[in-house]
């Protein structure tokens, strides 16, 4: 039997892993197993162009590299269990799938609120993670007179609110327990500027309060907040984060606390034949420090796939991984209304020391986030020129010293 790598997860990370295995010289079989019925597709447009109706669903599919043409895709298939030492996966339906090497790329699923009130299909409660989610939400938002409550003022929540205003949704309110939107990644200065921009464009905010429960019988009629307020609502979007899809890996001795813990080369559990990529991987980034973190940014799966493919092929050959660990420079962007947030580096590590580098928070602005006096992140808010100005600091970010305590092992 020819040797086989199984890639668990058929999203961006799974696709890039398959391509990078070929690029790194793997000539054995590659099987990608994914539980959605679709080939890998691009998710950022779901909360923007797809929800707005300006991009057809079909335009989202990635075009795999020619080198990945012989990859076998097992779509609409869920992995229910794994025996890593025996190198066997169990699929729904009971079939067993043997592997020599495994790439864990099963990503996240939307976290749901647990509180009283209507739930389930038809209740008006939505999440936004998949193509099916975006389709369902769009069909509800395009009904005249809709009142939308978005729970969670993070990336998805703010983008959905902006898109909904653009769609002409009658009332859009964003709820969050934090006092400002996107406070954790941005810090106060930009979060406040973001709040004002949303409010000027018609988004309402109910901040500093959580959801106590939903009103209504079988369908949502309102959202009760922890401070006693009740917001009328026909549609609720729960944008309260995501949970790693790791249940199928339980029982193998891996650290699955908030994703799959890996070493600096993306190996899971010290195993030479198991690596993890994408949102599900919790890895240390020696560019900053030694704390393993999950990074839910679009750029990470592609970056990780390169490193993970080399690590896995070395491991399968009985060699140590290539010397360079995985030290990506994270980047994120978020398009909301007519402006863009663009970030390079890890601004959330430097929210205590934020300095304006260009412009003014009331207009187009670029700020630098610092830790221990070092630049750790650059974020712009505004027009394309502001994003381009932020990008000019990228080389500076790449050359900054690590935040590791002096004398600590990398």
């Amino acid at each position, binding site marked *: 039997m020819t040797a086989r790598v199984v890639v668990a997860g058929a999203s961006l990370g799974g696709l890039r892993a398959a391509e990078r295995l070929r690029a790194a010289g793997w000539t054995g079989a590659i099987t990608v197993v994914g539980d959605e019925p679709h080939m890998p597709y691009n998710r950022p447009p779901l909360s923007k162009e797809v929800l707005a109706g300006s991009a057809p669903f079909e335009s989202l599919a990635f075009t795999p590299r020619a080198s990945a043409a012989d990859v076998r895709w097992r779509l609409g298939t869920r992995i229910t269990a794994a025996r890593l030492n025996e190198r066997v996966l169990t699929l729904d339906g009971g079939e067993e799938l043997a592997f020599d090497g495994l790439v864990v790329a099963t990503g996240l699923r939307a976290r749901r609120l647990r509180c009283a009130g209507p739930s389930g299909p038809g209740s008006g409660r939505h999440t936004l993670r998949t193509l099916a989610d975006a389709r369902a939400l769009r069909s509800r938002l395009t009904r005249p007179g809709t009142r939308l409550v978005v729970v969670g003022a993070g990336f998805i929540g703010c983008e959905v609110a902006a898109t909904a205003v653009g769609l002409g949704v009658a009332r859009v309110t964003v709820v969050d327990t934090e006092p400002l939107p996107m406070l954790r990644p941005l810090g106060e200065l930009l979060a406040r500027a973001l709040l004002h921009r949303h409010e000027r464009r018609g988004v309402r905010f109910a901040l500093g309060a959580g959801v106590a429960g939903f009103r209504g019988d079988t369908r949502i009629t309102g959202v009760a907040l922890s401070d006693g307020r009740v917001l009328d609502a026909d549609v609720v979007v729960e944008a309260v984060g995501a949970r790693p899809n790791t249940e199928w890996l339980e029982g193998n001795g891996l650290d699955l606390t908030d994703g799959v813990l890996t070493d600096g080369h993306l190996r899971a559990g010290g195993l030479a034949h198991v690596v993890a990529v994408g949102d599900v991987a919790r890895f240390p980034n020696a560019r900053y420090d030694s704390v393993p973190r999950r990074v839910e940014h*679009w750029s990470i799966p592609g970056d990780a796939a390169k490193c993970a493919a080399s690590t896995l092929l070395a491991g399968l050959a009985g060699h140590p991984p290539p010397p360079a660990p995985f030290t990506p420079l994270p980047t994120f962007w978020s398009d909301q209304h007519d402006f863009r947030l663009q970030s390079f580096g890890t601004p959330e590590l430097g929210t205590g020391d934020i300095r304006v580098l260009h412009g003014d928070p009331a207009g187009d602005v670029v700020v630098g986030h610092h830790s221990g006096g070092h630049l750790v992140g650059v974020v712009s808010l505004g027009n394309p020129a502001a994003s381009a100005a932020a990008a000019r600091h990228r080389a500076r970010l790449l050359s900054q010293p690590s935040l590791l305590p002096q004398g600590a092992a990398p």
Partner: protein
Amino acid sequence: MKVVVDMDKCQNHGQCVFAAPDVFRLDDGAQLVHVSHPDDALRDDVEEAADVCPMQAILIEGSEP
């Protein structure tokens, strides 16, 4: 090798500029411009640029080497 950018999709993120600076750049108005027929020696860079485009707006035409 021919590089085609779907300008209806492109939103000037500039990630391609980092991956393949000899082929892509942002002009003074922060709009993307690119070389249509780059040297085949740049294929790896251009493939990387196509991969990292958040809008997946970059297409590479022409047979693989």
